[in-house]
Each structure stands twice: as structure tokens, then as C-alpha cells.
């Protein structure tokens, strides 16, 4: 248990540090890289929780695909150096206010609503088998089929929209 705890603490430190690094880095590429590290440490959290499928999916989808696209776009646009941004006058107070609300909500939920850990984390044996994976699939394609499909249609619409926005009309100009 202590090994897990030490690991958790180290990982938590890494996760928080990389998240902060992402925010404060002046170079967009470094920001993206910090985010990748952050995703990776979160994936290890999942592993610790005994959910290897989610961990691998996290790495494949977020670190492997999405962040590579981010990097691709940053490099393609040559936008490594962030231009000095004009800060809107009401932006900062609003951000602080919203952050405070978020912290309050989280604290409220954690303190008042959180169940004992044993209830949330299922025993490792059941998670780490194929059965769990099948259950995940069943849940996704039976119980949550509609949200799943709606999400995929949403993504499709976004994709089509992007293509329509960038595609030149025929004969407009070569």
C-alpha cells in the first residue's frame, strides 16, 4: 500500500507540475509537450486504479493522436512563440471568481458526497480481466448507445463543417 501511495504522490506531483508548466510556458511547443506528460501521468493513475484499458486508450487517443495533431498545427503555423496577448480588463477577476466557484464545488463534493474508497474502486481482479472489457463494450453499445452515436454524429458534423469552411468552391480560383 505504501508503495502505491509513494507512487501516487510522485505522480501527483508530476501531474500538477506539468499542468502548471503547460500554463506558464511561453513556447507553445513546450506547452504541448507538458500537456503530453500530463496525459501520460494521468494514464499511470489509471493503471494504478487497475484500469489498463482506459490507460492505454488515454495514451493512444490523447497523447498519441490529439497532441500530435496539436504539435502539427503549431509547427505548420510557425506559432511557437506566443504573441503578447492583450488582457481584457474583466478577464482576470472573472477567471479568479470562476476558479473559486470550481474549488468550492469540488471541496463540497469531496467532503460531503465522497463515498469510502472501497466503494468506488472495484477489486483489481475483476477489472484486470477481459470480462471487464466486454462489460465496457456492452455498456457503451447497449446502455449508452444513443449518447455514443450522438457524439459520433457531432464529430462528423464538425469534420464536415471544417471541410466546407476550408474547401474552395470549384472554379473559384485555382
Amino acid at each position, binding site marked *: 500500500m505504501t508503495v502505491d501511495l509513494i507512487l501516487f504522490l510522485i505522480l501527483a506531483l508530476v501531474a500538477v507540475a506539468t499542468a502548471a508548466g503547460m500554463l506558464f510556458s511561453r513556447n507553445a511547443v513546450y506547452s504541448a509537450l507538458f500537456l503530453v506528460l500530463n496525459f501520460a501521468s494521468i494514464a499511470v493513475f489509471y493503471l494504478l486504479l487497475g484500469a489498463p484499458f482506459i490507460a492505454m486508450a488515454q495514451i493512444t487517443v490523447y497523447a498519441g493522436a490529439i497532441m500530435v495533431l496539436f504539435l502539427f498545427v503549431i509547427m*505548420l*503555423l*510557425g506559432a511557437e512563440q506566443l504573441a503578447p496577448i492583450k488582457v481584457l480588463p474583466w478577464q482576470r477577476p472573472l477567471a479568479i471568481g470562476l476558479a473559486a466557484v470550481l474549488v468550492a464545488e469540488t471541496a463540497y463534493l469531496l467532503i460531503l458526497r465522497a463515498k469510502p474508497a472501497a466503494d468506488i474502486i472495484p477489486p483489481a481482479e475483476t477489472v484486470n480481466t477481459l470480462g471487464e472489457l466486454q462489460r465496457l463494450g456492452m455498456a457503451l453499445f447497449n446502455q449508452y448507445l444513443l449518447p455514443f452515436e450522438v457524439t459520433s454524429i457531432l464529430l462528423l458534423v464538425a469534420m464536415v463543417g471544417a471541410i466546407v469552411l*476550408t474547401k*474552395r468552391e470549384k472554379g473559384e*480560383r485555382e
Partner: protein
Amino acid sequence: MATPTLTETLDLSAKFPGAVTADARPGYTGWIVEAGKLLEVAAFLRDEMGYDLLSSVTGVDYLPDEKMEVVYQAYKTTGGPGIFFKVQAPRLDPIEVPSVVPIWPGADLQEREIWDLYGVKFTGHPDLRRILTWEGFSGHPMRKDWKEAFYEEDAKPFKSRWPEGRIKMAEERNPFGDNVTFDEGFDPEKWTSNDPEEALYTSLKKYTAETSDGIKTDHILVNMGPQHPSTHGVFRAVVILDGETVVSLKPVMGYLHRNHEKIGERNTFLQNMPYTDRLDYFNSMSNNWGYALAVEKLMGVAVPERAEYIRVIMAELSRIQNHLIWTGMMLNDLGAYFTPALYAFEERELILDIFEAVAGSRMMCNYFRFGGLARDLPEGTLEKIKDLVFDRLAAKVDEFDRLLTENEILVARLKGISKLSPEDAVAYSMTGPVLRAAGVPYDIRRAEPYGIYDRFDFDVVTQTDGDMYARYLVRLEEMRQSLRILRQAIAGLPEGPIITGKPQYQVRVPAGEAYGRIEAPKGELGYYVISNGKPNPWRYHVRAPSFINLTALEKMCVGGKIADFVAILGTIDIVLGELDR
């Protein structure tokens, strides 16, 4: 060989009275055109008379007459003799001549070369910058009064090399020291590449302005070369890219420039023969022939039958090995990992064996002489040639065809890319396989036969698409046609002498001008030689196909991808030794 009289059908002086006069200097032909009327005459020649191919533009410095002359050689793509016309300008600064780029875009690079080497300003030229020497170079090195670093004397053999029988280092005794001069205000120590390159980059920028599109992306300026694996040497192309698409391109050359023509003017006529080997070092045999042809025209010597046949055999073997290597290297440019190139080298070595047997050298052959050849075929060489021509090469060409022509990736990379219409190809003075691939059946061996090419039965290979695939097919088929010529030449090879008269170190060349041109494997290779009766040529100009075929490079590349640029450069088939001279 009878030199056709160039002017028999056309009297320009009657058409443009006062503005055009016949060139009456002894040994000269053609017309002298008033500078102000040049464009009018040029347009008339192109549109009314059908001289659509401007073969060569070059300058001549007549220092004793205080005149600078620009010589134009125009030909008809339908064949027949060409027309020479000249513009003379007083040798004062600045020397100004109107540019013929609006009429013949193919004059672009050549006029830049004349500006660079002779300092003739072409008014109306779109982009007149130095081309062979570097920006910041002082003076115009082909002028007769320009003295290079470590200058000794005007003409070889240098008498200063053995005063009183003792040999001195040239550096020890020449009165001009290292003779490096710079423009006013130019300090080589403080030179940074930005200022002189500015002209180059601004010449590109005007293209970028046109491509601003709905979505703005950064254009990347990439210097491909001079150190780049696939520019075939130290060639540089400044490319502006929109992602991977070429938006604008300028060739930059001259990194191997050694002022070949000035060296040629210092040398005696015969000393020049080995120098021509170094131009297109793949085809020293053809290079020799072009030069021999020009000087033979001046000397008026005939070539013995046997020598003519051997010349044809050597030139066609040279063409085959050039096209083989081209095919291999082209595939390398496309990314094939050396396999086709090594297959081609295998055959080339066998052809080089023959060159070695006849000339003693594999690449720098130096085999031709004025009025014949250096030596006869050694014992057994003809059998080797027969083996190659009748058995091996034909099968190998078929093997290349079988392995490559239908390859899906090759087709996908070559077909439909960098299309050049026949009109454009002619306008840009393209010659050789590139022109024929665009559908213009122009082959000097047929259009204006030299040597004994009028006796052979062969086809001028053409394709209609004008794309890279067509260029590949043309070269492949040309190898077959060369083999056809070779078979006829071997069958007809007579016995007899191989040189007219006695071999001599010093030839007597009467005063006059001559333009000898041959269909080299890469295109029209022309030598423009002027003699003033002295042992050294007064003017020695090389019309290099590698150089002039690059004029259309930008037109061919823009809109394509960066990978296409490499392939296009490959299909033009350049050799830097010839390009930079």
C-alpha cells in the same frame, strides 16, 4: 561537308532598309541589326519567317574595334539552316541592348550570362542579375581587357613559363599579383550574405504576393542546395513553398564556374579539345564532336569516311550510356535506392571499356581531332562494340523497359507532372529529349544533319504529353534508335585513313566565325568559335544544353510539389560541369 549559306533565301536588308545590313566581314555571315530595331526584326523572324527557336545568344568583345557585339542564332524547328544576326554597341559604359526575352523567353538565362560576363545591359530584361559569378563580383570577366587573378599573358603557350630555359612559378613573376579587385565600398571581410542575396529574394517575392489566398499560411523559403543530395552537384534552387507546394523558384548557379570560355580563348585551338571533355563529363565524345565541327567549318577541312563512321559510333554509344545513367539516376531522384542506377552503371562500364580502348581514358576521352580522330580503333574493339550493340545493349534496354515503364509508382510520380506545351518548349529554347517529349520533332541529326547522319535510317522519337513520363519514354526509345544507327554504322564502316592530312599540334584556322552544333544527349550542344587568324580563338562560346534547358525550370516546377522539383530537375538532365562552365 558543305556549310549551307545562311542567307540565300532571305534578304533582311531589303525588308528593313537602313536598320539591317549584311555582315560583310570576311568569314562572317548573317546580319547586323540596329539596336533600336532589334525587337522588330526578331518578331519578324519569329512570326513571319518561322525562326521560332532561339538557339544561342552570346556576346563578343571586339576590343580593337571598340565594339561589343551580341550574336543571336535562331533556327526553325521544322529544320534547315538557321539565321545569325548581331547587334553592335559601342564599348562604352553602360552598354545597352534591348532584351529579346519578350520574343524568345529562352534568352532569359543567356542574357543574364552576357550581362554577367560582358557587362551588356539588356533593357527590358525582367530579372537582370549576375548568374555565373557571385553578386558582388567586380568586373565582367569575359571582356578582353579583364585580367584574372594570377594573370600571365593573353594567349597560350605562355612564353613566361620558360625564360632562359628555367621554369618559374607563375605566381612569382606575374606583374599583376593576385589581381583581385572589388567594387567600391565592398569589403570582403565584412560581407554578409544578406545584401547581395536581397536581389535574389526580392525577385522571388513578387510571386508570393499573387498567391495570397483565403487561408493564410506561412510560406517557407528553402534554399535547395548548393549542398543538397539531389541537385546533381553544387546547384542551388531558391524555392518558396506553401506547405509542400512550390510557389516560386529561382535557379542559382555558378558554383563550379571556372570561366571555361576565357580559358578556351587563352588556349590554342587544339589545346581546347581536352577542355571540352570537362563540360558534360558524361559525354566527352559528343563534346569533342561539336567543337571539332565548329573548327572544321572554319578550316574548311573534310573528314575521312572511316573517321566519320567512328565518330557516329562513339557519339551514339555515348548517347546510350548517357540515357542509361539518366534513367538510373532519375529513379534515384525518385527515391529508388540505387538499384536502377547500379544496373545502368553495369552497362555503362562496358561502353566505357570501349572508350578506354580507343581514347585511353574512360571519361575524359579527348578522341576527336580537327579533320578526323586521334587514333584508329585498336585490334578487337570493333568486335567488342558489335557484341554490345547486337546482343547485350538491346536486351538491356528492353530489360529497363520491362522493369520500369509500367511500375505503378514510377507512373504515378512522372505522369502528368510538369507538363510543357510544345509552344512553351520552343519559346524557352528547350532542346533535346525535353523538347521532343513535348511533341516537337526537332533533332539536329535530322533537322540539319552534320557528319554523315543523313545516311542513316532512324526515327526522331517524340511523345505528345510533354510531361516527365514522356521524357522518360523519349529517352528510352532514343536508346533503341541509337542502337539502330549503330548497327547501320558498324555495317557500313569502311577502311581508310582516320584523319585528313598529317596530325599536327598547331592548326591554321582562317579568320571568321563558325557555329558547330550537334545533337548531344542532353540537347543542342553548340560551339560558337571566332578566329582572327591567330593560333588562339578570339571567341569560344559553348551553348550548353544543361544551362539553357534550365530556363524553363521555374515554369515547370511552380504548382508542383517539392518532390516533383527534384524529379523535374532530374528529367531535364543537367550536368553541372556544363551548366556552370
